[in-house]
């Protein structure tokens, strides 16, 4: 609900503003004045948003999330991917993501997803590793091979 969302939003910013202003009191001289003023202004604006929402006579419904299950799935898979990029290596984690994310969202054409994964990851490899020579997280599989060899 819009009214409730705006009250919470305002209160969150009141919290951030007070916290920032309080932190800024420990900074010496002019380096503390500026963030302190910003913190106080943010507190004031947050309070304004909350009070305005409280005084609003009508409440317009506004969905915060359109498809909660899909959103949670996408957020969860994205978080797991970010957590795995360093331990598994960029290409391994990314290849798994291109397969896992569509499957988790209900896509069942596995060959299609696999083809896109192979073509897309080959392009990424060519652009970032061959052409631009960007250092990316090392592949675990290569490290294991090296240890095994």
């Amino acid at each position: 609900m819009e009214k409730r969302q705006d009250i919470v939003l305002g209160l969150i910013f009141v919290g951030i503003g007070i916290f920032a202003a309080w932190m800024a009191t420990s900074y010496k001289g002019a380096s503390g004045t500026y963030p302190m003023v910003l913190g106080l202004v943010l507190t004031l604006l947050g309070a304004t948003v909350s009070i305005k929402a409280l005084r609003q006579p009508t409440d317009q419904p506004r969905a915060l999330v359109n498809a909660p299950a899909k959103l949670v799935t996408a957020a969860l898979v994205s978080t797991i991917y970010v957590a795995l990029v360093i331990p598994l290596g960029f290409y391994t984690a990314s290849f798994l993501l291109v397969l896992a994310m569509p499957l988790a969202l209900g896509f069942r054409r596995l060959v299609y997803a696999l083809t896109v994964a192979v073509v897309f990851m080959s392009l990424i490899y060519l652009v970032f590793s061959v052409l631009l020579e960007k250092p990316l997280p090392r592949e675990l599989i290569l490290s294991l091979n090296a240890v095994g060899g």
Partner: protein
Amino acid sequence: MEFYTNALSHVLTFGPLTAMIGATLLGVFIGALPGLNPVMAIALLLPLTYSMDPLVALAMVAGIYNGSMYGGAIPAILLRIPGTPASIATTFDGFPMADRGEASKALKIACWSSAIGGIASAIALMTMGPMLARVTLFFGPAEYFWIAIFGMASVAVMVGSDPVKGIMAAVLGLLIGTIGIDNLSGQARFTFGQTWLLGGLDLIVVLVGLYALPPVLQLAEKCDLRGLSAAQLKLADVPFKKGEIRGLIPTWLRASGIGIGVGILPGAGGNIAAFLSYNAAKNASDDPSSFGKGNPQGVAAAECGNNADNAASMIPALALGIPGNVVAALVLSALTIHGLQPGPQLFHQNPTLVGGFMMEMLITSVLIFALGGAVATRVFAQFQRLPGVLLVPTILILMCVGVYVINGRAIDLWVMLAAGFAGYFLEKVNFPLAPVILGMILGPMAEQSVRRALLISRGDVTELVTRPISAVLAAVTVLVIVWPLVKMARRRRKPVEH
């Protein structure tokens, strides 16, 4: 003139030329895919430009910006789905034309109109930009401070539906901009003992998170598992009637003027330019009832208007450091990445770069004629057969690789993810994100300028408003902030009086 001939000699070299052609094609492709937009594409591109020559990096920004504004017309005409928010008005007459078998003609008109709007806008940028920059020679720290505040204030109150939330977003951006070591005193602020925060939050990391992750999450929510069928994308050639193209010239001239005017205004975007141009074409028409039923003038007005906004929005961005829209803010970020300070000094310190970027905006507009024709459009339309659900992981991977290569740190990936999730929910509660980025860009400039001005005046605060230019800028800034609030309060009081 020497300013531009010198810049042109740098632009017409292999690197910038290739970048312009590639990025314009990429831009059309991005615009053609609903769910992807130029802001997201440029945000993803910026981290990759760190090691590039600034003119190559800006060539890519110019190409993607101009190309995607036209690309948005492809799904708008074929499917009544605007590829970008700026192409909403294109659906009004574009789709009815496609519905009666004139899709190819509508796409050709959209292509030519986009190119003409873009060219007119670039010429406006090239003439008005340097003139405005000349005025800034008289500016001191107090004026720079007010320019930074004016830029943030005008965008904060004009973007979104609630000016209070807009100002709150700008203040949040200013606060995020203070994280790290204070350049003037050496004091570490809001670092919580974390060494990776000493340099502050990386602008691009936050930018990619805020602008690229929310659309990805929305694509996941929509969960398009099929894509489009080949039959939906079939285009038949329809010849133009005699005098039909000549009849579009007044529409192009009118829409170009409107688009340029809207572009210069901070906060107003391509969608407003397209709507205003469309309405103006309808009002000027002998047969206004034909609009909305497949009148080619409607397509021409909307597409010319939204592309005429592009380069014009760079006028205040390049000359004053005030971005007219989010893409202009991203251009300022691109300049920051390359160690250049956006704002009034830029024209005097880096004429080749500024002039070069203006030329690139012009050349990429011309390239739309050559690269965005019916054949290319047919090819790009085919990408819409790709199920939307497959775009979710691919964009996420591009985001991660782009963010990781900036500093080679895993922590940046987490910051990006956190910024993205926050951005998703903030957008849902009508909290504008553009002022946050502007606050982060202009915040350090505002803080350093105000502290320098106070050092010069030995702590006398009146110095900020007693110089004639700074007094005018301060008054305009206060007006920009107060006026929408007064209007909002009046609007709320009205029903009570009744």
